């Protein structure tokens, strides 16, 4: 492309979030994609259908999300780098498969371009699947690694990070996006192809050569002693995962009031911080980037610094529970949310901060 400002060979493009994600996956060396169309993420499957026949990688439109996540199970078991994507109702259908994948410890990447619910809901953006993503979602004690992008750039970057973490920990990763991030167009610097090395595993089912024990991929451990040990192993892994926690501080150093938001909400909150700063109010923002593992420690630190927290989400109040767990009652934790595909404005958020400040000053008089 002809971009005169772009002097250093970066591959800069204007792309939809869903397309940037798909392009990044091809560059990340994805071996296979299995998916089913659903708004607002159908561009992902369409992009692969267009590109994979030319550039390599298996792409298959399954008969359902139930089938696609189980194809992922089979394909991941061969050691291939595989992913699927869907939106909220389809991700609900995948929960059975995700539980099996987590138990069998298979690396893969799952993308949820979240839309408003519950039920068939709406195709507009939402963050209503937070609980489902970070607390397990399917049956049994397990967790996904959850990354929350806030830009088209991160839709691309987190594909690499999602695969890297999934393969390092033999655990499914999820990118928890939303309908706005999937559909909106922004400038994106595409990561170079071939920069994510592949590991040759010894646990894969690829055919048993003479002299090695057969490999079995299963989540069935009928003796409770064995099943408990599997659970202990998983819990030890989740403990180890804590070191991968990532968050972004935005004007936090001198902040007296702290917004907490992830994904698209965090982007809107940045504007609210700017509005407040213009009026001399020391507002800051903590943005969790990994939603699992979660930055409990950083929030606990901030509880010593700020007057109160305001958690902003596009749901009825889900991540706010984790903020309260971290803050442990040391400071008030307020919540501002929109639901059903509605998006809060920076002015709404700033007005909420002012309302809380007003109430506090009345109660102090």
């Amino acid at each position, binding site marked *: 492309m002809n971009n005169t400002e772009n002097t250093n060979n970066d591959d800069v493009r204007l792309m939809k979030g869903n397309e940037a994600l798909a392009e990044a996956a091809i560059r990340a060396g994805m071996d*296979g994609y299995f998916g089913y169309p659903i708004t607002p993420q159908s561009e992902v499957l369409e992009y692969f259908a267009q590109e994979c026949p030319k550039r390599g990688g298996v792409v298959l439109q399954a008969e359902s999300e139930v089938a696609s996540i*189980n194809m992922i199970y089979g*394909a991941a078991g*061969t050691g291939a780098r595989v992913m699927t994507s869907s939106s909220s109702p389809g991700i609900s259908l995948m929960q059975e498969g995700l539980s099996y994948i987590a138990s069998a410890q298979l690396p893969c990447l799952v993308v949820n371009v979240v839309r408003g619910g519950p039920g068939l809901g709406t195709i507009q953006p939402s963050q209503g699947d937070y609980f489902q993503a970070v607390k397990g979602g399917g049956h049994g004690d397990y967790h996904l690694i959850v990354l929350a992008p806030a830009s088209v750039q991160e839709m691309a970057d987190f594909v690499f990070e999602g695969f890297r973490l999934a393969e390092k920990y033999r655990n499914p990763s999820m990118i928890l996006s939303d309908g706005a991030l999937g559909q909106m167009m922004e400038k994106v610097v595409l990561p170079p192809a071939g920069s994510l090395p592949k590991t040759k595993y010894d646990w894969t*089912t690829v*055919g048993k050569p*003479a002299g090695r024990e057969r490999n079995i*991929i*299963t989540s069935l451990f009928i003796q409770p002693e064995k099943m408990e040990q599997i659970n202990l192993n998983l819990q030890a892994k989740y403990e180890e995962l804590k070191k991968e926690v990532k968050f972004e501080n935005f004007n936090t150093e001198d902040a007296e009031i702290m917004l907490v938001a992830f994904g698209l909400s965090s982007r809107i909150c940045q504007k609210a911080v700017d509005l407040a700063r213009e009026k001399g109010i020391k507002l800051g923002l903590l943005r969790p980037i990994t939603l699992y593992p979660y930055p409990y420690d950083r929030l606990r630190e901030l509880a010593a610094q700020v007057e109160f927290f305001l958690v902003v989400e596009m749901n009825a109040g889900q991540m706010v529970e984790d903020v309260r767990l971290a803050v442990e009652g040391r400071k008030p934790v307020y919540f501002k949310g929109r639901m059903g595909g509605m998006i809060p404005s920076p002015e709404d958020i700033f007005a909420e901060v002012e309302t809380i400040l007003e109430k506090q000053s009345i109660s102090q008089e």
Partner: protein
Amino acid sequence: METLQAIDGMELVYKKPSTLTDTVFHYCPGCGHSVVHRVLMEVVEELGIQEKTIGVAPVGCSVFAYHYLDIDMQEAAHGRASAVATGIKRMLPDKYVFSYQGDGDLAAIGTAETIHTVNRGENLLIVFINNAIYGMTGGQMAPTSLLGMMTSTTPYGRDKDLIGYPLKITELVANLPGAYYVTRQAVHTPNAVRKLKKAITRGFQNQDLKKGTSFIEVVSNCPSGWKMTPVESIGYLENNMFPQYPLGDIKVPQDGK
């Protein structure tokens, strides 16, 4: 394990295939599963494809199939074995892949996966054990249970007006263009076992041709679930099951082998 030797002066004519593990089958006396396991592994041994074969076990009585088959295997969620097998085969198109599924798994909860796997013509083998009952969970009605059949969930007999008809899913998948080879076999007599072995051999060899799905139904028995002796269950097969599920090839490739 020590290699089996013929007793002095006698000829060794039959032994456990090297592709079966030494684990003792958990199946009930008289059950057909262990015979089908054995035949599968005899074929894998004789074709010399142990290093290139990946199996998918179902949920049901054969949920532990991977304890016995000495090959790389994956254990699928209930009904999803053919989707899992699809994922494996798409990644490893030159390996031999099969799913092993019972009637509840393949023809009830996994109906969509079964039909679409075959309709895509996935180049793999599906082995379908039809014993007309849910054995693992204690003898409930299966989609293939016969009309009038007494099970724990049809204690007065399967009534078509209440719960519909036995599902002949093998005839159904044979209608799909992606089905390359469809046959219905049994394991109730030595001759039937020999015929099944030929069919399974073909199911593996067909994968070299990359022309579609091979689908083998084995009409089998469940003495425990049917509340019969093994011998009585063979009689039930012949008198009741085979009339509903007639044995033989249903779709045979027209081109060559």
